[in-house]
C-alpha cells in the first residue's frame, strides 16, 4: 500500500509533464516524479524497528535499516538537482527569446 501511494505520486508527476503547457510547471512536475522515486527507494530500504545506519556503541549492525538505498538516493538527489538547474536555465533562456513560458505559444511564434 505504501509502495503504491508513492507510485501514485509518480503518476501525478507524469500527468503534469504530459498535460501542462507552462515550462516551469513541467519542471515542477519532473521534480515531483523525482521525489516519488526517492520516496519509493527509501521505503524499500526501511526495516521495521531498524536504526539509522550509523554505528553507536551498543547497537548491533543487524538492526540497521538497509543502507544501500540511502546511498543510491543520495546520488539520485544530486543528479536531480543538476537536472532541475539545467532545465530551469534552458526555460529561462526560452522565455528570453519568446517572451512566454507557454509551449503552444512558442510553437506558434516559431512558425
Amino acid at each position, binding site marked *: 500500500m505504501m509502495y503504491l501511494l508513492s507510485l501514485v505520486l509518480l503518476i501525478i508527476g507524469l500527468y503534469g509533464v504530459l498535460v501542462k503547457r507552462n515550462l516551469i510547471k513541467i519542471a515542477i512536475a519532473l521534480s515531483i516524479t523525482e521525489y516519488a522515486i526517492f520516496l519509493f527507494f527509501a521505503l524499500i530500504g526501511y526495516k521495521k524497528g531498524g536504526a539509522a545506519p*550509523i554505528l553507536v556503541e551498543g547497537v548491533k549492525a543487524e538492526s540497521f535499516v538497509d543502507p544501500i538505498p540511502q546511498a543510491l538516493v543520495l546520488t539520485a*538527489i*544530486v543528479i536531480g538537482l543538476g537536472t532541475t*538547474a539545467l532545465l*530551469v536555465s534552458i526555460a*529561462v533562456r526560452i522565455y*528570453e*527569446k519568446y*517572451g512566454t513560458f507557454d509551449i503552444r505559444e512558442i510553437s506558434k511564434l516559431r512558425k
Partner: protein
Amino acid sequence: MNRGMTIIVKTVARLISGLIFLFGFYIICHGHLTPGGGFAGGVVVSGGFILLFLAYGSEEAKNEIKIWRASICESLGTFFFWLTAMIGLLGGSFFFLNILPKGKPFHLLSAGIIPLCNLFIGIEVAASVFGIFIALSTLKRGDKS
C-alpha cells in the same frame, strides 16, 4: 547597479554567514561520523555565499569574475577528487583504492580517504551551486524576438 540592502541586513548577514560557513564545514568534516558529508555541507556553504551575495548586491562587472572564480573552484574540487581516486591507479593498484590508514573508528582522522573526498566534494558542490545561482540571477535580458 545593485547596491544591496540596508546596513542592518548587511551586518546581520555577515554575522550569520560566518556561522553558516562554520556549520557547513562541520558537516563536511564529520561526514564519516555523523549524517551529512560533502554534498550536504557543500550546499550549506554555498547558502552562506548566496546570503552574502543577496545582502551586498554586486556590480555587474564583478559578476563575471565571480562566476569565473566559482567555476575555477569547482574544477579544482572535482579535479582533486579525481586525483584522490587516481592515486591508487597511479600506484599500480586499483582505481579508488582507499590507500590511507583507516585509523580508529569514531575519530575525526579516520576512514582513510573518505574525509578527504568529502572535503573536495564539498568545495565542488559549494562552488557549483553558487555558480548556478549567480549565473541564473544575474542573467542580462537578451534580445527578444
